[in-house]
């Protein structure tokens, strides 16, 4: 006997109890179980009405009074459908609200958090940041100070929606006010204390923070648990990994960070990115090999960094698993002294 046959028999039993045995309580109790079962297998209300008519025929219920009484059973079953429908509406309302929240977060990111790429003769910058969904967990910022230096940062905020967007706003203004002369490590310390007090306990931020002098080619950098970056050495045609060990932002108040220095010669490039790039899942669900990405940069080493990041982005999105998309962010800064 199939599940449907069982349900048909159950309904017949309910009608019999109610119409012929006058056993009201038993009929109503069975009614509730029956409603739950039919809703569970996605039966539509019209199918129940049709079953009701079939049953009346099958049981030869012709008396108008009995037919009227039988409608009370039908009503009892339909009450559960009403509840389910109202649940569904409530869920839709919730989803709408959630969507509105995402819209607010997305527009916050688009307006407040946009970085302006500085244009100077001795440096070329390429930057791209594309969210996987409506709202990004990635953030980058480049600030041109009123001298020969820029501060740049790439961050991955763990957590989504409005809290993540607010955390990014904190990073942006924190970066504006972090005193440049104190260097990247001190800047991360300031940001860490700011973030630690304000984010919820499951949230944290990884961040690479660099200060680059585009006249001298000197770079200082520090990292709060962010993916290591690379420097491409044009003359030697090699990639150097650059990293300093450090705890992610937002976990421990008063944490300190290390700082390192490097020097960029002409046509050397700094490449910083988020884990959406380095941990990219391919169509076959395997991870991308970082060497493949570096090879793509090498191929395009003569190009402007904006063209390189655009090329990387297009190639990577073609390789990416459809259901495993992550936010992708990349920055390339090139010492372009000789190009002018």
């Amino acid at each position, binding site marked *: 006997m199939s599940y449907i046959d069982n349900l048909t028999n159950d309904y017949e039993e309910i009608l019999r109890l109610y119409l012929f045995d006058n056993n009201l309580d038993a009929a109503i109790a069975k009614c509730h179980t029956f409603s739950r079962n039919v809703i569970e297998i996605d039966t539509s209300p019209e199918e129940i009405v049709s079953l009701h008519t079939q049953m009346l025929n099958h049981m030869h219920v012709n008396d108008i009074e009995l037919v009227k009484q039988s409608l009370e059973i039908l009503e009892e079953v339909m009450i559960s459908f009403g509840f389910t429908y109202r649940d569904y509406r409530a869920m839709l309302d919730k989803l709408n609200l959630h969507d509105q929240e995402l819209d607010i977060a997305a527009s916050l990111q688009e307006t407040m958090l946009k970085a302006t790429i500085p244009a100077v003769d001795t440096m070329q910058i390429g930057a791209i940041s594309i969210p996987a969904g409506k709202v990004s967990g990635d953030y980058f910022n480049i600030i041109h100070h009123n001298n020969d230096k820029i501060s740049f940062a790439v961050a991955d905020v*763990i957590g989504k929606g409005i809290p993540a967007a607010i955390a990014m706003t904190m990073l942006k203004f924190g970066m504006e006010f972090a005193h440049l002369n104190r260097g990247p490590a001190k800047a991360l310390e300031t940001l860490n204390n700011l973030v630690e007090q304000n984010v919820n*306990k*499951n949230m944290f931020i*990884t961040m690479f923070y660099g200060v680059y002098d585009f006249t001298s080619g000197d770079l200082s950098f520090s990292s709060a648990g962010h*993916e290591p970056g690379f420097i491409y050495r044009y003359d030697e045609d090699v990639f150097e990994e650059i990293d300093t060990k450090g705890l992610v932002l937002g976990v421990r108040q008063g944490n300190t960070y290390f700082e390192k220095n490097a020097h960029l010669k002409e046509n050397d490039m700094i490449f910083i990115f988020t884990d959406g790039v380095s941990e990219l899942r391919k169509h076959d669900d395997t991870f991308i090999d970082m060497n493949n990405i570096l090879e793509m940069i090498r191929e395009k080493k003569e190009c402007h960094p904006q063209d390189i990041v655009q090329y990387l982005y297009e190639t990577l999105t073609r390789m990416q698993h459809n259901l495993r998309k992550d936010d992708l962010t990349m920055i390339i800064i090139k010492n372009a002294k000789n190009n002018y």
Partner: protein
Amino acid sequence: MNIKINVDEKPEVTHVSIAGELDIYTAPELKKVFEPVATDGTKNLHVDLKGLSYMDSTGLGLFVGTLKDLNKNDKELRVTNVQPRIMKLFEITGLRDLMYITKYPEGEEIEK
């Protein structure tokens, strides 16, 4: 994208072993297990990750939040049998230094 969670309650410690993938989709399920232990604060939490093949940053965030709650009550979070790819995540983020953690398969202990 599945996760399998086993919980074994002992008088002083809750043992949790996790298999499968811990990501934005499966983290809420694990959170339901971690949160009561962490906020209750009467037991240590020992987590075996031998069967865990993938963890994303949301999963890592769950460990961070759990660690913060446990620390408030002077309770310990131990993470053991961590697969190399996941260990790399704990290392890069510096979180390795905040908790007792061992690798798979050597079971080698890493100093706090």
